[in-house]
């Protein structure tokens, strides 16, 4: 991450004869590099800076999204969002989803990556099958799983448990079951992706490390603890960062699988921002929520990076 902020390499000192003075070259390069970076600056200003400033501004007003006038209301929106049951519910489920998927995917993806790193018949097929769900649209997967979880006896899961004599269950109609179902589908869809990420780091560990460890008499478990795990720490950092930020931003899967229901049980923060801000004309309140969301995501990223830096320092 830090590497992108590093200054560019100094140009090598060249000795060929007639060319512009150093100063002229610098000036020309300055103009040229402005021209080349201009498009990305425009993208930043139009798609990030202005909307971000507007979100801050709206969050301090009673703006409804379409009228021309908006009254300044101070921090009122920031207090009312904590009294809105649908928003609180969205916050709760978003946190449950984030923690649930992060823990479950990490616990499953690391062993899966270790297995996929061994040689066995059909390994490429297994790898592709686990990875494939993350290639296709999450929204479509959510819709397909909606049919799989169908409450009648004809749903896939209900007919499977029916073979064992169980009664059909309305998976998505009961709040807790619906929440668990959403998390399960997300884990199903995300584990392979993160396993491939871990796999890439595993394959970068030189085999000499393991040879040296086994010569020193380290058991398999010790090798995992003292060779694999420390060298996997950067991968764990990256994977968890992606899982946490991805979890907080989740929208597609709950929306297509349950529509946020039953009630507000599987509503997400993003759904709240969209529905309150665009459909229901509560742009001020929804903007306050989106600002809180931005600050929370930023803090988590910073905290996670600091924590992982400490972890890496401890392990190495």
């Amino acid at each position, binding site marked *: 991450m830090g590497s992108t902020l590093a200054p560019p390499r100094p140009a090598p000192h060249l000795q060929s004869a007639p060319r512009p003075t150093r100063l002229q070259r610098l000036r020309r390069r300055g103009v040229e590099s402005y021209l080349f970076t201009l498009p990305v600056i425009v993208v930043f200003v139009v798609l990030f800076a202005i909307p971000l400033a507007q979100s801050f501004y709206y969050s301090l007003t009673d703006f409804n999204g379409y009228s021309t006038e908006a009254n300044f209301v101070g921090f009122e929106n920031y207090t009312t969002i904590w009294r809105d049951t649908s928003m609180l519910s969205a916050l709760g489920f978003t946190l449950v989803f984030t923690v649930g998927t992060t823990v479950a995917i990490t616990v499953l993806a690391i062993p899966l990556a270790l297995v996929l790193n061994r040689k*066995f018949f*059909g390994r490429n097929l297994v790898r592709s099958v686990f990875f494939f769900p993350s290639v296709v649209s999450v929204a479509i997967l959510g819709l397909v799983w909606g049919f799989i979880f169908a409450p009648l006896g004809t749903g896939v899961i209900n007919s499977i448990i029916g073979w064992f004599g169980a009664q059909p269950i309305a998976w998505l109609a009961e709040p807790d079951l619906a929440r668990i179902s959403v998390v399960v589908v997300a884990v199903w869809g995300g584990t392979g992706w993160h396993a491939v990420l871990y796999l890439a780091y595993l394959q970068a560990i030189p085999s000499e490390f393991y040879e040296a460890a086994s010569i020193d008499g380290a058991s398999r478990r010790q090798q995992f603890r003292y060779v694999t795990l420390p060298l996997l720490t950067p991968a764990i950092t990256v994977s968890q960062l992606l899982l946490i*930020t991805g979890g907080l931003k989740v929208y597609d899967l709950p929306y297509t699988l349950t529509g946020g229901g039953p009630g507000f049980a599987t509503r997400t923060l993003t759904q709240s921002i969209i529905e309150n*801000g665009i459909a229901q004309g509560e742009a001020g309140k929804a903007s306050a929520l989106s600002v809180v969301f931005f600050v929370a*995501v930023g803090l988590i990223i910073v905290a996670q990076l600091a924590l992982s830096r400490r972890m890496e320092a401890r392990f190495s």
Partner: protein
Amino acid sequence: MKQLRSILLSVVMLPLAGIVAIPFYYILVNTLKTQPEISASPLGLPSGLDFSNYTEVFKALPIWQSFLNTLYVGVVSIALMLLIGSMAAYGMLIGQGRLTKFIGVICLIAFLVPGQTTLIPLYRMLSGMYLVDTLEGLIVLYLAGSIFCYFLIIGYMRTIPMELFESARIDGASAFRIYRSIVLPLIRPILVTVGVFQAMWVWNDFITPNVFINSPDKQTLVLQVYSAVGQFSTDWPAFMTLSVIVLAPLVVFFIVAQRHIVSGLVTGSVKG
């Protein structure tokens, strides 16, 4: 011992992969069935090869229209993203201290801002420009991905010896000429990787079209599947068939571009 372990792994992992693949088997097998057949046995094999669901779905929905919409948005937005991202990366390399710091900072900010935070103002901005419910509006929004492209491209560019640019400059080539005839060919591998990665994002994205597109004739494929669920709520085979039709290009894409997808995943996550 080693062979035994390998056999054991196959015995455990292949059935496990089978379980993970059930949803895909489920939708595929049910495209060949009728509604009563699905109700009778959702996972059973069809009684015969009957492709009438496919012809009916193509008749009932403007799938080609949505396919072309998605393709148009994808191709234009990814071409622009790669252009903007690679230009910025090159500009950064030839630029001087203050500018590069500034660009580094704005890109970092852009990275931290979740799309959700800018959604409401962007909706108002696009509606002010009459770009809501247009494919061009989607393209404008997807340009936000240029920042991610920039991050990956500059990481790759730093591995190219600067001497290559310098010698071209001494030969009298202009910066644009160097960009076009030296930089672009040299960074082709990363352009392909980033392009594949962003293509997956644009092709699969649901939130943007769902918020910004209303007209049926401007739908992307994913949005079409979503709105077809209401229409097909009782016609399960039709929904399954539509899903298979929409997922099929991705299977092909996955097989062709698997290598790039994985390398994009790795470089992307490291940079991000």
